[in-house]
């Protein structure tokens, strides 16, 4: 039985938000489109299991996360800070999801883009395996796990 379920992804996401962003009990959101101007972060799992873990959120949520992690006010943020903080979030999410899929496998370094549909197109050949959507500080956040389709 696979450990990669909606429940396990939701649970580890909650744990990561609690540990890194001091956010407890995030309400889940129903499926739907995210607003524009979003930030997309990805990391790949390669090995016995192959796929990509994505974290997408609004620009506002990305800025909130960055302020919390760096402990600085919004007006002091740089784009590099946001890329670094959101990249680390997807790195931690990806590392924990790696433990839910068959191994051994390795995790790539994270990559982050903003409002870039090109990155999203890279997911075009993958299948959505799991997705959780939740609200954090009244902003939507989506964690999704994409896998390489089986050949049959």
């Amino acid at each position: 039985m696979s450990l990669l379920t909606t429940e396990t992804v939701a649970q580890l996401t909650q744990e990561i938000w609690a540990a890194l962003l001091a956010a407890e009990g995030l309400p889940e959101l129903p499926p739907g489109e995210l607003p524009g101007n979003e930030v997309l972060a990805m990391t790949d799992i390669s090995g016995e299991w192959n796929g990509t873990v994505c974290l997408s959120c609004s620009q506002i949520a990305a800025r909130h996360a960055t302020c919390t992690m760096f402990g600085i006010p919004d007006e002091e943020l740089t784009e590099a800070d946001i890329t670094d903080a959101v990249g680390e979030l997807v790195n931690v999410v990806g590392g924990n999801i790696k433990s839910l899929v068959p191994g051994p496998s390795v995790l790539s370094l994270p990559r982050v883009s903003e409002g870039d549909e090109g990155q999203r197109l890279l997911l075009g050949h993958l299948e959505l395996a799991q997705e959780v959507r939740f609200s954090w500080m009244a902003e939507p956040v989506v964690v999704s796990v994409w896998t390489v389709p089986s050949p049959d």
Partner: protein
Amino acid sequence: MRALVVDDSRAMRTILSRILRKAGAREIREAADGQQAIELLAVGEPPDVALVDWNMPNMNGLDLVVALRRKAEWRRIAIVMVTTENEHSQVVRALAAGAHEYLIKPFDESALLEKLAILGFQMPEEPGEPELADNFAGGTLS
């Protein structure tokens, strides 16, 4: 306590440094990868403790641990791996290479403070110098 934080995320280095300051660290140096850590260690006093991520560009954390254990003047540095690598085999590899403690991300502040306490670095009750054990015991797999 002198500390070295090695992580390719500046956000994570900031979080770890914040906790180290609470634990009484009076000097904290930061490196973005293993190679940069080696360059930093080449100058000045070696740190008492190093917090080391695993997955980093240029030189990863496991290679850094091996390098730290090869050089006599760096062998006294207590090493805590702080990483998302949570497979048992990886934990064993890191401890076998010379890491003393292993902390899986995400972690809360108390978990890191506990690891530091195991290594003899106690959080001071009043601002000032922390207690530093002359010799810390061997690592634990936790």
